[in-house]
């Protein structure tokens, strides 16, 4: 398969990349590892005239800010992230999530920023459309959906594995614009619109993520649910962070995020509220898991039915809560 023609620009800094991106506007596309973009270009789903490549830029290893926050460069390859000793100590949840992404080669090429800014995908959209599904769907500016034939909207899911983990960890993202940079909670980066999943405008670049330090006893768990267990997009992924009171008995706050089952990663707010101030127990986990599954309300995707996903999600949510709780005691 050949790539379509494009012009290749290699800026020498992130600031220059942002300036170029603003200058070229919608003609240009930012690319880092390219493992999400190039296949889509080969399939003919997207055809940017100009590619602004971040590949030549140097990467800063994760650093701890004076206040204890961990700053991670968005250009860090996922493989490096997964084996970084500092990330492993500060946020084992993130290491695990990074290690669960695709294959070894893709983890070496793909970056954290790319994983967080990837396109939504669907069974029918992500392939060539030369001889099948030729009539465009919503995501190709058409007016139909192949997944839900009478559907009135696009049902493509956001498949990132690291996003749920980072959202559960309460990470904020730094977005560099042509004029100024801004900071926003990572969950606000996602619009929930499958046709435009990211809340960033022309000329903006995700430069790094800031992970606040844990100030209490903490248990975490990450589960990526797949059929084969390797080189696969998640049926769903679930990231759980339990922050405990100092006595280690009552739960101060819980953060539960479910990925790959909707147009954006879904925070299970009702489940989280049911955990706050409670003593951890099997019955509590069972109750919360039920709420998480209902709240996530999975989209059917990649051949999984909504009912199947909901049933599995309930089981895995209970297991991951138990696993997180086991780390505390």
């Amino acid at each position, binding site marked *: 398969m050949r790539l379509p023609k494009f012009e290749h620009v290699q800026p020498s800094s992130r600031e220059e990349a942002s300036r170029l991106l603003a200058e070229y506007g919608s003609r240009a596309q930012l690319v880092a590892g390219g493992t999400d973009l190039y296949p889509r270009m080969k399939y003919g789903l997207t055809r940017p005239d100009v590619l602004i490549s971040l590949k030549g830029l140097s990467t800063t290893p994760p650093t701890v800010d004076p206040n204890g926050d961990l700053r991670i460069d968005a250009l860090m390859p996922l493989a490096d992230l997964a084996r970084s000793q500092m990330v492993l100590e500060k946020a084992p949840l993130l290491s695990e999530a990074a290690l669960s992404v695709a294959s070894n*080669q893709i983890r*070496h090429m793909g970056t954290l920023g790319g994983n967080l800014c990837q396109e939504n995908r669907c069974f029918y959209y992500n392939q060539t459309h030369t001889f099948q599904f030729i009539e465009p769907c919503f995501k190709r500016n058409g007016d139909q959906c192949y997944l839900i034939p009478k559907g009135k909207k696009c049902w493509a899911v956001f498949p990132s594995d690291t996003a749920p983990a980072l959202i559960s960890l309460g990470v904020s993202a730094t977005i560099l614009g042509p004029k100024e940079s801004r900071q926003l909670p990572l969950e606000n980066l996602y619009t929930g619109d499958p046709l435009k999943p990211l809340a960033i405008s022309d000329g903006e670049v995700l430069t790094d993520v800031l992970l606040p330090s844990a100030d209490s006893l903490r248990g975490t768990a990450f589960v990526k649910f797949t059929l084969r267990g390797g*080189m696969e997009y998640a049926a769903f992924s679930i990231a759980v962070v339990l922050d405990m009171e100092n006595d280690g008995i009552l739960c101060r706050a819980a953060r539960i995020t479910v990925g790959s089952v909707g147009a954006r990663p879904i925070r299970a707010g009702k489940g989280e509220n049911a955990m706050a101030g409670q003593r951890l127990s099997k019955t509590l986990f069972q109750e919360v898991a039920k709420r998480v599954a209902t709240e996530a309300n999975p989209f059917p995707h990649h051949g999984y039915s909504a009912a199947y996903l909901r049933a599995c999600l309930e089981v895995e949510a209970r297991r991951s809560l138990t696993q997180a709780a086991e780390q505390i005691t």
Partner: protein
Amino acid sequence: MKKIIELSVNGESAEFLVEPQETLLEVLRDHMGLTGTKEGCGTGECGSCTVLVGDRPILSCLTPAVECHKQDIITIEGIGEGNDLSPVQQAFVDCGAIQCGFCTPGMVLSTEVLLKENPNPQEKDIYKALEGNLCRCTGYNKIIEAVHKASKQMVAEQE
């Protein structure tokens, strides 16, 4: 617009005039005639186009050649010396881990990287390292066996 790039492939440097959309795979196969690197799916799923760029296993079908300017690249032709096979290649032959052989260059390179980082891998480490290499004929048992064998031999050689 075409660009001039300099690549060091298997220790030999050369300059190429390439279009931005030409992938590293196309340069290796079409410009250099190094056809050991295979094109399988072309979209990063199968791993048969794996090459090493500065010790990292990457997919050459998803890497524009212009992004590899001044990089050290090792393809399957750079593994082993002349007709002497590397321990990994020999283990693949001995275990019958090859049928049609199309996935083998990628498998061997992924294994080389794994054994360099972790000379004594557990079964789950091998699964993790080779998850991006698909084989459609032998099944994976003999390949896993070959990796174990290569690992044992390389550890024994070092002692």
